């Protein structure tokens, strides 16, 4: 039925209901992930970012905000070159973090 209008889904993030099981598992396996300050140097130096939108910063944030589709899409673009690890001011092994994350299902189980 056409009402002459349609409803857009809200882009708001509700932290009460967001599922962050995969993030919780990730920080168990790579506790340094917690220390990200969102400076963006990983994204700035990323060789894949200019063409693909890959960003380690956005991956970490997306996990905490329930944006799994965006996270998976970004992860699939990573070439594992490791430049992000070299520039991280908090010394997070981001390459290891990405590899660990690729092995986790959305529910946080180790699948690979």
């Amino acid at each position: 039925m056409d009402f002459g209008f349609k409803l857009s889904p809200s882009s708001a993030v509700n932290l009460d209901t967001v599922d962050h099981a995969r993030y919780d598992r990730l920080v168990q396996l790579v506790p340094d992930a917690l220390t990200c300050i969102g400076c963006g140097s990983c994204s700035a130096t990323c060789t894949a970012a200019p063409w693909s939108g890959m960003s380690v910063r956005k991956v970490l944030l997306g996990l905490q905000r329930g944006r799994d589709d965006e996270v998976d899409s970004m992860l699939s673009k990573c070439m594992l070159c490791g430049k992000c690890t070299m520039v991280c001011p908090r010394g997070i092994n981001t390459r290891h973090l990405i590899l660990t994350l690729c092995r986790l299902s959305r529910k946080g189980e180790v699948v690979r």
Partner: protein
Amino acid sequence: MVNRTPVIAIIGAGIAGLEAARQLSALGYEPVLIEKAPVTGGHVAEWNRLFPDMSPAADLVQSLEAATAKVRTMTGTEIASINRLKDGYSLVLSDGNILVCQAVLFATGFHLFDASKKEEYGYGIYDRVITNRDLEQWFNTRQDERIRHPKAVGFVHCVGSRDVKAGNTQCSKVCCITAIKEAIEVKEAFPDAEVYCFYMDLRLYGKKYEDFYIRAQRDLGIHFIRGRVSEVGEDIDGRVVVKAEDTLSGKPVKVTLDLLVLMSGIVCNPDAQSYAQQIGVAIDDDGFLKSRNNLGSIVESSRPGVFFAGACTGAKTIPETLAEARSAALAIHHYFNNRG
């Protein structure tokens, strides 16, 4: 004057006033502490533990009080008026006495911003919204009806700071580290609680402050959300619903909390402004007292015989306040030496 010990009126017996009194006594002067409150120690006496070493605030206050035990101290005393004399100042006190002095030291400190003025945050409206001072009181007493095993706690940075509409455009400088300190303490008290900090910028510039930040993130899993809280509401269970933008992802966020702590900022003590006006001491456009210059002479006013120590000239940390109190004592010493 020549054969008499100069009398120095110190307005305010917080940590700046106490430290200055101690130094001035040691230099052979006669400081007189005038304190409006019934006790000395000022704001620090209301706090529980202090960054960066988490030492008890009471220890610092007690050591300063012990060091100034012989200084003439008038608590519960207000200044009705203050006047310029040819060679000093006279203070009319609320007990009817008049104190004549050769120098005045403003150690009047600050006022904590009245969080109820930011009505959208609901302080004084919703039960579960408290301030940094309320939380420190709870740390001291462990008694507050509003704090009952919270499962989710939020901290709002910059309440009444960097806010033109709140009348204070300045950064209060110590609230970022205080928020993280208190967030850590809350998480330690309630380990199963989720703790969120809503910040605009994190201004953590001092010795060991960054360690607090890393500890809060890595060891305690405190969540930092970069975005200013826009509004707070209450749900049917009396919990508070907080809305902000997560500016790093560019999305609005909403979270329901059992306790929301507002980090009230530092504004000038209105009494200090009133005393300053009475004796022609300039007030800066940020509302704080105006130093002769902000680099080399921050403890000196533009008037002879009037000096500043601590937060009367702007937000300060405790070590900065104590250093300024010592600096002011020395400036007063030079002032009398040069007068001969």
